[in-house]
């Protein structure tokens, strides 16, 4: 007979437990720090998009990963600005001001509109509720140059693990997923249509459903019409 933990795990596929008032209960005991490598297809496409650009500017929304900075710098001769949005989320959780995230994201980025060639969004949108995700997506669309591209990863599995993931680039076709503790868990998975609506100003050029239960999507901003 399965024990309580096993049953909890079994029903976990239905999503995180909820209390009577709707708040999500997170079992921190399931938080694990892990590391594993998985293939990626969208990264190659992302690099291909930026290959022709001269000294492109990339915005990385994940935490600083030194080897990624080196990788992108050496492959693209680019400028990389690291803006750790996960840290922003954690700070808002600590301060109990999650409801202010949409407003925060609207003024979060100081770059000029249309000045960024590529954005590494990773899976940060999975940690945001709809209004905050929409505010962040809108801000990112505004920053992108025409023909600029955005790489997003979206979980297709409901998970209760309270971890962020550092996506460490091993090579053009391999990412190492390195998890680390987070103050917020992933929110409900975004459906394909929801994602497209979030980035309504961009066009989906590639979408890959990976065995790692991540959907890798590459967006491009349509070129300005002459």
């Amino acid at each position, binding site marked *: 007979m399965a024990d309580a933990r096993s049953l909890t795990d079994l029903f976990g596929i239905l999503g995180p437990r909820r209390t009577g008032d709707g708040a999500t209960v997170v079992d921190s005991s399931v938080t694990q720090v892990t590391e594993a490598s998985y293939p990626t297809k969208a990264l190659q496409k992302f690099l291909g998009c930026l290959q022709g650009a001269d000294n492109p500017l990339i915005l990385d929304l994940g935490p600083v990963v030194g080897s990624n900075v080196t990788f992108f710098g050496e492959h693209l001769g680019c400028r990389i600005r*690291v803006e750790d949005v996960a840290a922003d989320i954690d700070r808002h959780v600590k301060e109990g001001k999650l409801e202010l995230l949409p407003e925060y994201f609207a003024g979060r980025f100081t770059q000029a509109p249309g000045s960024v060639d590529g954005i590494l969004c990773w899976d940060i949108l999975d940690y945001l509720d709809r209004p905050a995700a929409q505010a962040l997506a809108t801000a990112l669309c505004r920053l992108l140059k025409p023909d600029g591209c955005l790489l997003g990863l979206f979980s297709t599995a409901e998970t209760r693990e309270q971890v962020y993931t550092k996506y460490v680039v091993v090579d053009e076709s391999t990412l190492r997923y390195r998890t680390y503790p987070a103050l917020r868990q992933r929110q409900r998975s975004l459906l394909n249509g929801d994602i497209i609506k979030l980035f309504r100003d961009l066009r989906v050029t590639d979408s890959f459903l990976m065995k790692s239960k991540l959907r890798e999507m590459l967006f491009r901003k349509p070129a300005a019409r002459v």
Partner: protein
Amino acid sequence: MWKRDESVKPATPPAQTPAAAPSAPVAAAPASEPRTQQIGRDNVNIGKSVIIKGELSGSEDLTIEGHVEGRIDLKDNVLTIGPNGKIKAEVFAKAVVVLGEVTGNVTASEKVDIRDNGSVDGDIASPRVAIAEGAHFRGAVDMQRAGAKAQPKSTAPAAPGQAQPQAQKVGA
């Protein structure tokens, strides 16, 4: 170079600027002089009790364990910010190794290496950048393609010979 006649009097009497005394320029802080020493022939160490405000330039490798505020220009040499070093300056060097804290833009013609527990808050321009796991970095990285050299915005050429901390306060 770093050794100085003990009889040299501070440019500003300490009594007039009691609050600024710990952060006075090197030339005005004889007490810290013995901490600034030449480790080897081509490597100079600025001890952790030394506070420099102004421009630091030279043609020797330099290790900083103290505080520097202003500008550091070692365009042909290696600058190491030790674990106790705290820099609030524009930095130009051949290579920069950060084990302490840097606030300000860093330009290196060869490499910037932020080690574990090192911290950089500012933009980096260098053809090679290494950021260790556990290092803190906030800013932008500009890695020129191989062949393109970093061009420090240095206007004052480094004095031939040795590192020369100048007794000039930033913004003064």
